[in-house]
């Protein structure tokens, strides 16, 4: 198959339209800001902006929201290195060596290396997407309902068990998400399910309300009066500090390469997003280093590898989302939800039916990453200032933005009530040590999962073995079983990198 160079050019012509450039810029600036602000999450930020995109053309909307997703990765590193705050899970591991470097007065160098690793990782991730996504989509064209169903099952299972926390609880959260996705009118029969007579629930639960409740309000309830005072002693730096020395560059080159490869591998496995990639990359560097004792005391490799892996994996995560319609984590689930809201059916047909969207998005990745470099390198001082906004000012303001953002989604205050409900419920879940992120995965995939499940069984006249007699479906189910067995294996002998990653992130 030929890779359409013309398609890519077409993508640039879409992404370079002035309004799309503007949307992309808004996205990456907002993303960078959210990444820098301690205590603000990418999920909340995308959810707040999502209702504002309802009136926008779909391509612009997705470029903007995607910009938020990868822009936040740039900001998150600043927060980790200079403040020692793991405010964004993918950057938690960067604190280990980034902050000691900042203490030695080499915070600028660490940031400079981070930027280079970021660009390299992102570029690799985008190339990977250009070459693999159309290919995967082409294969997926032939999938039957049964195949899609099993693939979704694999995606859901991986998404809930490979992420942070107990796998069993992750599965529970996914099922809860699937159930929440059923609320509203059944597409096949028109029967209202779980609406309890509330008319506002006929169209289902508003995705923005669910996600801002679970990840916005619940997070405020959790961290109010519990944030530690921020140590801003090591935040003074200028543009010239960012330039790494030749020796540092040499030390960081291979870790960046290895990190990038690990990130791209992790993005291929459904459910393993940037967080796991960064932990695996760090662990690998430490293991193969000749001087592992330097790690934790300011080894530049310990910053370079995980950062490169985060960026390549965030870009790579778009591959299953855009080519199969299966999101790897909650952020991608939200973007998928945005696609659906804008009337675009996710799945293998997306690339063919909406080339503007797909190739425009890829082109905007290049442009957006370039913008982020120009935003971060000359303006590092601005972002560092932003680090100092205290949480006690941040959360009351954010609460207002959440309320009005949710209202704007459908112009109804009922959704704000829903948000508050899920906020309190989400806090309860966190108290009971559940990780609520898989709820969003289940919620977004739920309706399509049920539709394909029903269709597969109608075609096979109620024969459940259809899932095993289709070879592709059987293959995915085998992977599911393999995944469960591997999980049990890891539980028994807690030494594998994944187990280390999940305990280290606790």
């Amino acid at each position, binding site marked *: 198959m030929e890779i359409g160079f013309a398609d890519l050019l077409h993508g640039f012509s879409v992404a370079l339209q002035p309004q799309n450039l503007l949307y992309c810029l808004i996205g990456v600036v907002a993303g960078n800001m959210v990444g820098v602000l301690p205590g603000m999450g990418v999920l909340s930020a995308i959810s707040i902006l999502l209702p*504002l995109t309802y009136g926008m053309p779909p391509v612009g909307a997705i470029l903007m929201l995607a910009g938020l997703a990868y822009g936040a990765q740039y900001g998150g590193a600043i927060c980790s290195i200079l403040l020692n705050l793991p405010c964004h899970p993918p950057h938690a591991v960067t604190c280990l060596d980034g902050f000691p470097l900042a203490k030695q007065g080499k915070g600028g160098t660490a940031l400079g290396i981070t930027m280079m690793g970021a660009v390299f990782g992102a570029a690799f991730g985008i190339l990977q997407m250009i070459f693999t996504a159309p290919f995967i989509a082409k294969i997926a064209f032939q999938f039957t309902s049964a195949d899609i169903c099993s693939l979704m099952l694999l995606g859901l299972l991986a998404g809930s068990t490979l992420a942070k*926390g*107990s796998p*069993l*609880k992750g599965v*529970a959260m996914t*099922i*809860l998400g*699937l*159930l929440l996705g*059923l609320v509203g009118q*059944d597409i*096949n*029969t028109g*029967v209202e*399910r*779980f609406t309890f007579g509330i008319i506002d629930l006929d169209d289902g639960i508003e995705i923005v309300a669910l996600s801002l409740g679970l990840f916005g*309000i619940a997070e*405020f*309830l*959790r961290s*109010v*009066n*519990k944030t530690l005072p921020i140590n801003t002693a090591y935040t003074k730096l200028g543009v010239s500090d960012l330039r790494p020395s030749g020796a540092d560059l040499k030390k960081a080159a291979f870790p960046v390469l290895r990190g990038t490869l690990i990130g791209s591998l992790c993005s291929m496995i459904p459910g393993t997003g940037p967080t796991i990639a960064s932990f695996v990359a760090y662990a690998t560097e430490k293991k193969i280093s000749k001087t592992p004792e330097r790690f934790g005391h300011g080894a530049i490799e310990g910053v370079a590898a995980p950062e490169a892996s985060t960026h390549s994996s965030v870009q790579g995560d778009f591959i299953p989302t855009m080519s199969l319609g299966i999101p790897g984590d909650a952020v991608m689930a939200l973007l998928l939800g945005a696609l659906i809201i804008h009337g675009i059916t996710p799945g293998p047909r997306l690339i063919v039916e909406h080339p503007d969207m797909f190739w425009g998005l890829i082109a905007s990745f290049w442009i957006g990453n370039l913008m982020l470099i120009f935003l971060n390198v000359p303006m590092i001082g601005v972002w560092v200032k932003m680090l100092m906004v205290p949480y*006690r*000012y941040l*959360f*009351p*303001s954010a*609460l*207002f933005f959440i*309320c*009005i953002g949710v*209202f704007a989604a459908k*112009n109804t*205050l009922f959704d*704000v*009530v829903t*948000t*508050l409900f899920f*906020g*309190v419920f989400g806090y*309860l879940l*966190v*108290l*009971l*040590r*559940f*990780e609520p992120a898989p709820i969003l995965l289940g919620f977004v995939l739920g309706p399509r999962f*049920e539709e394909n*499940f*029903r269709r597969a*069984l*109608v075609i096979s*006249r*109620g*024969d*459940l073995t259809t899932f095993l007699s289709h070879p592709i479906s059987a293959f995915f189910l085998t992977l599911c079983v393999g995944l469960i067995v591997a999980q049990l294996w890891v539980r028994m002998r807690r030494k594998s990198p994944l187990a280390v990653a999940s*305990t280290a992130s*606790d």
Partner: protein
Amino acid sequence: MKLFERRDYYAGALMMALGTGAAIVGSRYEIGSLTRMGPGFFPTALGILLAFIGVLIAGAAPYTRASESGTAELGAPDWRGWACIVSGALLFILLASHAGLVLATFACVFIAAMGDRGNSWKEALGLAAAITLFGVVLFSFVLRVQIPLFGSM
């Protein structure tokens, strides 16, 4: 450190309750057969599955070490912050429908800000005033969100 995760009993119980509830409500819709599934099939099946996972979570509790099960120690909820955040959001809902955007925004931010023990009432007032001004300009004038500035909807 506790020897095992006692909270997992409650966690499992919650999932059992939610799953059973979903299955009971779901079974009131038409279940149908495997060939022609009714709207009740999927919710009932998921509900039963969720309840089953709940049993597993509770059953695994004695074998789960406290540190293994996810989020770091939270401690007791902070009730002042809690009350202020929840009532801030409630006030927004009430005032937006009856008194307009200006009052709703101001009350929401002010009350929520008072939830943080680090904020004095003067700081909370200042923050609320600033966000109200900003919010009115952005949402009312620029984005034209459909809440009147004053008065009921």
